């Protein structure tokens, strides 16, 4: 009789709920549920981030670069740990082209220097006549068309004698949607951009159709469509692609300015906008590391914008291309890009 007492008490005690354990269980369950709800909400963005980032690029072995001596330059750039070079690629990806066999209308080398909170942007003219990585020559905008990102990177590395750490590719429609997803950008447009033969290939069922464009000058808030017209139009610019490159850099910096205000409530919209329109070799971990870094590049004077102009090249090359003055180009590049 006496011997049964402890066993009964123990069983009774087990049947009673321990308050502390129950509370801990409830908190853990609640936390898990909140995380699960959040995960479900951010799943589309996470999926896109997973798909778009960390692209593995096979950079083909380039043919040996010609032994061109750079013109004497003030001093070559010194490699600083943490600094890196990104190749930005922007493409017409309308229905005139097969997927992933598009030309790059925009090619910008960007040197990011977290050590000094500064950035250098160098626009490469799309019509520059270069040697491709696989041999043969042509306008540099064809490198991506022949070899996708790897081909473009290998060609730029070979011809410009630089090392590229990462690349980001964005399609035209992606640019429009991205700017709309962040609520538009503020740009001080440099002049009236007038074009009677602007390609109407993004939203038209006739990809070879034309439209008229009139982007008025001065400070203004641009939506995606008008920002695209501003950066893409070149017929009304005496400098054609050079003028367009300057405008592209303005819009890139305006996007960066606006992106600083993106919050978690914008993530899904931005992800939806960029679905299938962006690819990068930057891994998701690195993207997460770079986001806080981006907001530290606040000083406009710490952003160096370079657009290649004559005498770095001259016209009259094959097929309307631009003939590079390699010694001068390499001297310029050596100042900023290792």
């Amino acid at each position, binding site marked *: 009789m006496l011997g049964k007492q402890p066993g009964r008490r123990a069983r009774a005690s087990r049947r*009673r709920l321990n308050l502390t354990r129950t509370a801990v269980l409830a908190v853990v369950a609640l936390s898990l549920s909140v995380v699960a709800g959040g995960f479900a909400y951010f799943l589309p963005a996470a999926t896109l981030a997973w798909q778009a980032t960390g692209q593995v690029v096979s950079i083909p072995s380039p043919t040996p670069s010609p032994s061109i001596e750079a013109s004497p330059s003030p001093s070559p750039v010194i490699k600083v740990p943490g600094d890196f070079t990104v190749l930005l690629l922007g493409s017409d990806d309308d229905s005139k082209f097969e997927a992933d066999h598009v030309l790059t209308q925009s090619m910008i080398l960007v040197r990011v220097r977290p050590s000094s909170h500064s950035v250098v942007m160098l626009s490469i003219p799309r019509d520059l006549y270069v040697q491709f990585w696989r041999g043969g020559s042509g306008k540099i905008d064809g490198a991506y068309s022949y070899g996708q990102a790897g081909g473009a990177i290998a060609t730029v590395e070979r011809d410009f004698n630089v090392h590229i750490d990462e690349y980001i590719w964005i399609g035209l429609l992606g640019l429009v949607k991205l700017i709309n997803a962040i609520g538009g950008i*503020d740009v001080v447009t440099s002049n009236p951009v007038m074009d009677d033969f602007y390609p109407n290939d993004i939203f038209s069922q006739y990809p070879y159709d034309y439209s008229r464009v*009139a982007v*008025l000058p001065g400070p203004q808030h641009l939506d995606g469509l008008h920002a695209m017209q501003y950066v893409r139009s070149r017929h009304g*610019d005496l400098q054609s692609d050079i003028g367009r490159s300057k405008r592209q850099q303005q819009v890139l910096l305006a996007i960066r300015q606006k992106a600083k205000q993106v919050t978690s409530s914008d993530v899904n919209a931005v992800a939806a906008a960029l679905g299938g329109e962006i690819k990068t070799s930057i891994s998701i971990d690195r993207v997460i590391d770079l986001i806080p870094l981006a907001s530290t590049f606040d000083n406009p004077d710490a952003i160096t914008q370079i657009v290649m102009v004559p005498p770095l090249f001259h016209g009259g090359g094959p097929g309307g291309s631009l003939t590079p003055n390699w010694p001068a180009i390499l001297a310029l590049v050596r100042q900023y890009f290792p």
Partner: protein
Amino acid sequence: MIARFFLALGLAAMMVVASFGTYVYLSGRQSKLTAAPQKPTAATPRAQAFKLPGTIYLAQSGALYSLSVGRFHQLTGEEGWTQPSVFPDGGYMLAVKQNYLYSDVYVLERFGAVHRKLTDNNAYGRLADISDRHWSFYPRLNPDGTQLFMSYDAPKFGYDVNLSVWAMPLGGSISQGRLWTISNDYTGGDVQALPVPGGGIIYTKYSYGPDGNLTGQLWFTNRPGSVGRALTDTDQDCSEPSLSPDGHLLAMICTYQKQVSHLVFASWINTNIGRLHELITDQVVAQPTWAPDGSGIAYLAPAVAAGPFQLWFLPKDAYDAPPPSPTPVPTPTPGGPYSGTLPTPTPAPPVAPPVIKPVQLTTNNGFDATSPIAWAL
């Protein structure tokens, strides 16, 4: 056993509610970035706006609005309307109606009803080419109200499409128009013509600077087809001129070829411009416009970095500081002449002029910053 069952049930229910609630909460949050600008009529401006004299006309999302006695009124539908300009006698206003292929100038009643169409820039017929259409922008009447000045994209040669300043009789057509300015090729051309009392126009001409950058410059010309003369330098990159009601001060914006836009003013005497003075350097200013009674300058600028453009007002005291106070003199000592050394008067501590800040009149709108503001009594 029963207690454990209910505990498990309760926890399961809580988990479902919490996870679902989290999802719904996250989905329901409004992005501040993509929130569409509020219609000006949805909210009245702040109290300060009640001090503004007359009526201000602005454009947003293709509609024209008026601001009078502190209240906005929508004058037109969102149909591509922009760039209002009031007649010198205040009876009507000009405005541009734009679509994606061409734009035309109209005369509107001051409450927005279309009175008359002044241009016809569409192209008709099956063989009409896309480039047969035209743009008309920045319409203004000369002081006596007989001539319409505007930027019009003719002549054009293939890819070289530039706006030039044209003038035509108010009751006439473009075939009676005269080309006032010769725009530079492949620059976008000449815009924002501002007829000045005594004849002539101030306008913005775009050209390539020594560094190859396209840049804006204010020019003055007093007859059609003449070269005229530059009022500002290319490196100042100035545009959007506005003349004070007394005709002696010129407001403008200057960017110095950067992604900034400062509010600048200068004297304007006998068609000569004075030294440029910067009034606002910490905002992206657009479309400065003088109050018709000279009480200040209205302009557009974002209220937050990279945000849509709001209406602001800079009171006159900000640029027309009161004269300095007189130099202090020693106070005479009562009791007759004093032969000793007079005490050195203590100079009054320097009084810093009060800093007059611009007044933000709207908060959630998104005004068209390429559309000049019209302001009439």
